[in-house]
């Protein structure tokens, strides 16, 4: 069952240096129980996408120019603020990345959890607190009743992150948008967070949109991946296919540049060459061409669209829905085929 469908989303920010499109022509689907990942360097538009799904783009000063976001038979972008508000946290919830900034330092954990249930479920404060204690217990916080009365600064970092996740999950939303949920965490806490997200998917059929630049994490947990560059999806594929046989030179470069846990220290960390594209001054043609080794004259002139690959050229099986926006994807895919054969 498709939970969420984003069609042709385009988000504009007006900056002193002119307009920029943080997200352009973005489309993807999220199925029940599935985790879809949006990856890319900072500024690639992945966080803006997360904001757009929650209707928070106007709040951050941007404009949704075109696009539709379908959820439960309704186009969210056509809803007024009042109706949208009812969906936030109750149907679609955001899991923020930095718990020490995302939790209100002036309010107790209990109040911050309970208010979600008071607003969306119409519970009394007392009922909401009981329910909140249960939610805190579910994410593995010991002695949840007493933690209700604690302020965020009285919790440890790991507990804060768990409390934040409990807050996102307390109203049992169908869609979870996790914006770099593990970036600020040490590996042990990160694992429990991922377990929690997994449990939500398996037990309740919730869908997760994972926004991350941690490719190892994405590779290990996501079902499908959308690689974003300069506001556009430049490659989309199943997670295991994408990194093993990238079609887009950018995906290949990202994968080479990932930090590997337990990797050999002697190797210097490879970086994607060049600087990320300037959104206010995008190059002509393919936005990635200034950083691409394979760039041709055509790449400098024309912008490639997302498209599939013809079977004859690779000899690899074609998976449905796998696409990349590159004129030279045959060469990239072919290069991989060769290295694999060699």
């Amino acid at each position, binding site marked *: 069952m498709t939970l969420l469908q984003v069609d042709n989303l385009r988000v504009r920010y007006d900056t002193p240096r002119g307009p920029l499109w943080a997200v352009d022509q973005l489309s993807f689907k999220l199925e029940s129980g599935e985790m879809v990942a949006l990856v890319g360097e900072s500024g690639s538009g992945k966080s803006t996408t997360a904001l757009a799904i929650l209707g928070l783009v106007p*709040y951050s000063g941007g404009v949704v120019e075109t696009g539709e976001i379908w959820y439960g038979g309704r186009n969210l972008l056509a809803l007024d603020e009042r109706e949208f508000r009812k969906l*936030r946290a109750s149907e679609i919830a955001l899991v*923020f990345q930095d718990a020490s*900034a995302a939790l209100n330092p002036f309010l107790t954990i209990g109040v911050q959890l309970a*208010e979600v249930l008071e607003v969306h479920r119409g519970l009394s404060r007392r009922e909401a607190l009981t329910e909140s204690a249960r939610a805190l217990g579910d994410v593995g916080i010991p002695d949840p009743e007493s933690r209700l009365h604690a302020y965020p*600064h009285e919790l440890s970092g790991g507990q804060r992150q768990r409390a934040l996740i409990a807050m996102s999950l307390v109203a049992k939303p169908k869609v979870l948008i996790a914006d770099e949920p593990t970036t600020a965490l040490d590996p042990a806490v990160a694992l429990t967070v991922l377990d929690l997200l997994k449990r939500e998917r398996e037990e309740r059929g919730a869908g997760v949109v994972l926004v991350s630049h941690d490719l190892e994490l994405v590779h290990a947990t996501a079902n499908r991946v959308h690689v974003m560059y300069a506001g556009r999806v430049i490659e989309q594929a199943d997670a295991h296919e994408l990194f093993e046989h990238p079609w887009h030179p950018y995906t290949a470069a990202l994968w080479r540049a990932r930090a590997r846990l337990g990797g050999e220290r002697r190797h210097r960390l490879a970086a994607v060459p060049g600087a990320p594209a300037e959104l206010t001054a995008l190059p002509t043609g393919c936005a990635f061409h200034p950083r691409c080794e394979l760039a041709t004259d055509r790449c400098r002139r024309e912008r490639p669209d997302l498209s599939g690959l013809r079977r004859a050229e690779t000899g690899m099986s074609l998976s449905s829905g796998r696409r990349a926006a590159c004129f030279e994807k045959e060469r990239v895919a072919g290069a991989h085929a060769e290295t694999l054969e060699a």
Partner: protein
Amino acid sequence: MKRFVLRRALGLVLTVWIVVTTAFLMMRVVPGGPFSAERRLPAAVLANVEARYHLDWPIWRQYLQYLGPLNLDSHGLLGDRERPFGGVLAGDLGPSFRYRDYTVNQILGESLPLSLALGSLALAWAVTVGTTLGILAAARRGTKLDLSLRLVAALGIALPSFVIAGLLVLVFSLALGWSPVAGSSTFAHFVLPSLALGAPVAAYVARLVRTGLIESLSQDYVRTAVAKGLPYSTVILRHAARGGLLPAVSYLGPAAAGVLTGSLVIERIFAIPGTGSHFVASALSRDYTLALGVTIVYSVLIYSLNALVDFAYTRLDPRIALEEL
């Protein structure tokens, strides 16, 4: 809590002592004295009068006498011991040098309640209105409402209080006849002066609340509140307001002390015999004891109100522990 109160009490005593000492010395350094008028007194008369107030003593002895509790004159420690106590430490601020037959305690006892009443009234409306308008302006920032509120606030700060007072009297007393022009006998007499006195405070509070709230609206935790689907009013009042109010709270400590001790201008315009006029008059006429008296009242108020602000901070922000202040 107990420790906080104890520490602040100790700090208050120490601060007031330093203020009294400094003020006492500075008053004496300034040329002229309470009895140096244009019409010079005959030398013998002057000597008599000065002896009556112990101005002929060396300054350290005058200071000790003023401070108390040791009475150094012929009725105290050094004389017949009829009046062993006196001086500031015993709560006796001494006789006024200019208002003969009045003690400073009597003068303050009559004028301070008026100023406190007027000031409380001014503070009450200024804080309520200022906070409300500040929140409104921040919540609707960039709109016409915000713009006009900012303009009004700028006017409130820029216009001197005598202009505001004059306008109020013109409109509400003379044109409409709703309010008495001047005096202090009924509650109605206090309405216009408290409006004029509170106007700049309300304007400052509105500005500080607006700026503070806009600042706190950009915090991540406020975005979290929006993402939780809370109504905008809850986002503002529950999540953003606390952090946004802190700057206004710290401004209010000293501001309240200023307002509560009265304003020369407002008291003159509305003929209210409050403490404000004594501040200026006593310093000009070298009424040593009265000037020191109002200084003490002012420093006690400032100190206590700042302690109150610190206490309010711990109530507003759970990260600040009372014990650490």
